[in-house]
């Protein structure tokens, strides 16, 4: 038992705490993705596959990012056991993914499609292993773990005017509360800090961290500008613009509210890199929702709080994604996809603090195992950030 706010989590041998206990089925390459999905489906919902488009034809940083992202999922606290599904001739090395899991104390097996002799044999062998692993995980009990062991990913997508006025400030107060308790918060989407970086840099714990944030934002802006087009139309998106957001600066100023109002910025890390510090970390992810959440979960986030004004359904294969809206119409029209409605902030005068307390309770209940809307609906989107051409 622990004092202070707590949830029922999976305490891992490596000291981390999971909110879920999945058997992760990792295809090393796009060519083994279908077999991996069939193996995971045979032990649903405990099975979780990571279908992706990469693993071969990659060069330099992209190959490294693919490898490190898959390895990060293999040792993630929400994963209890791992099956790596290889084709046999690809660039990503199955053994290294399996080793990442084993070093974190999780059992890991490799099934090779070329080695087993085709789709049917590889699928059958994988399902046989998956059933044994699922049975062994079934006996693992949850135990009380402090809220401070959480790494919370904060995210927004399908933003409209309500995001910056209601849901993001409410999530920001949740972030402040979790950091006060000793927890960690991660914010991604570098393009959506553009125009609000002065506010985050001013909260950096050291001048070097603030300078690092500004460097990453300058790099992303320069990459976008090198294409010779106006970023507007992508940032903000057509839907954002219809929803009342005029410029990326306006979108960013509303978006960064979700990282808290006063937490200090402790670190800036690369895509899917380990989130090593408590407090607030900024991760170098793109603004595309699924690539961004994939990276932050890879960094160690065991739970995601995701605000949306227009409504969006996406989840993650291994981490619960809690959908929050500040738009009363979206709360009704997309009720299937929404976990928490904070539209009362704009319609009935609910305070940010009261909304944040509701979000805190929701976060602990979901961390303890209650499925989110995205989990119930089978939303398990996964996409690895790609920056280089396919060769």
């Amino acid at each position, binding site marked *: 038992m622990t004092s202070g706010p707590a949830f029922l989590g999976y305490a891992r041998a490596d000291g981390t705490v999971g909110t879920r206990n999945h058997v992760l089925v990792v295809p090393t390459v796009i060519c083994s993705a279908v077999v991996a999905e069939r193996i995971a489906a045979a032990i649903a919902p405990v099975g979780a596959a990571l279908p992706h488009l990469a693993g071969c034809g990659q060069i330099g940083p992209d190959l490294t990012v693919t490898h490190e992202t898959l390895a990060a999922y293999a040792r993630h606290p929400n994963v209890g056991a791992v099956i790596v599904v290889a084709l046999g001739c690809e660039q990503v090395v199955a053994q290294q993914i399996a080793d990442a899991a084993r070093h974190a104390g999780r059992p890991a097996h490799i099934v090779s499609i070329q080695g087993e002799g085709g789709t049917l044999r590889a699928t059958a062998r994988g399902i046989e292993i998956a059933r044994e692993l699922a049975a062994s995980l079934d006996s693992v009990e949850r135990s009380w773990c402090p809220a401070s062991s959480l790494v919370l990913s904060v995210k927004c997508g399908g933003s*409209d005017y309500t995001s910056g006025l209601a849901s993001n400030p409410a999530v920001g107060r949740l972030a402040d509360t979790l950091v006060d308790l000793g927890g960690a918060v991660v914010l991604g989407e570098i393009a959506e800090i553009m125009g609000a970086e002065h506010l985050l840099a001013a909260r950096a714990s050291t001048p070097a961290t603030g300078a690092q944030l500004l460097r990453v934002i300058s790099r992303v802006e320069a990459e976008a500008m*090198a*294409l*010779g*087009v106006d970023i507007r139309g992508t940032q903000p998106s057509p839907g954002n613009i219809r929803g009342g957001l005029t410029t990326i*600066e306006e979108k960013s100023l509303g978006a960064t509210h979700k990282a808290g109002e006063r937490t200090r910025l402790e670190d800036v890390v690369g895509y899917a890199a380990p989130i090593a510090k408590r407090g607030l970390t900024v991760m170098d992810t793109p603004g595309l929702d699924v690539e961004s959440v994939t990276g932050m979960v890879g960094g160690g986030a065991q739970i995601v709080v995701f605000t949306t004004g227009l409504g969006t359904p996406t989840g993650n294969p291994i981490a619960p994604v809690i959908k929050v809206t500040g738009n009363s119409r979206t709360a009704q029209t997309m009720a299937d996809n929404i976990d928490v409605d904070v539209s009362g902030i704009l319609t009935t005068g609910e305070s940010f603090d009261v909304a944040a307390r509701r979000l805190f309770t929701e976060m602990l209940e979901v961390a303890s195992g209650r499925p989110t809307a995205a989990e119930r609906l089978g939303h398990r989107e996964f996409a690895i950030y790609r920056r280089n051409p396919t060769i």
Partner: protein
Amino acid sequence: MITAIVVHDGDNVATALEAIEAGQTVSAGPARLTAIDAIPRGHKIALRDIAAGAAVVKYGSPIGTASSPIAAGAHVHTHNVASARGRGDLHAAPRSPDIGIP
């Protein structure tokens, strides 16, 4: 009366919580003003005149510059506000990579 939210004291725009028709009186923080355009739900209304080239301010920070003069009560959006960020169209010559077989 229709309400528009003013986030920060220094802002020169407010956000309409419901659709506003031209000619309607709008309550925006301590101010009352008359809308001179229709303002869709969630879009912004100018609280005072904003000169072309001046900063449009929301959340207490600039969200862009007026690309034409904006009168108090006008709809403020992409037609009269330019972003200062990510403007590759202004600052860089487009690269034209060879795609396909020459």
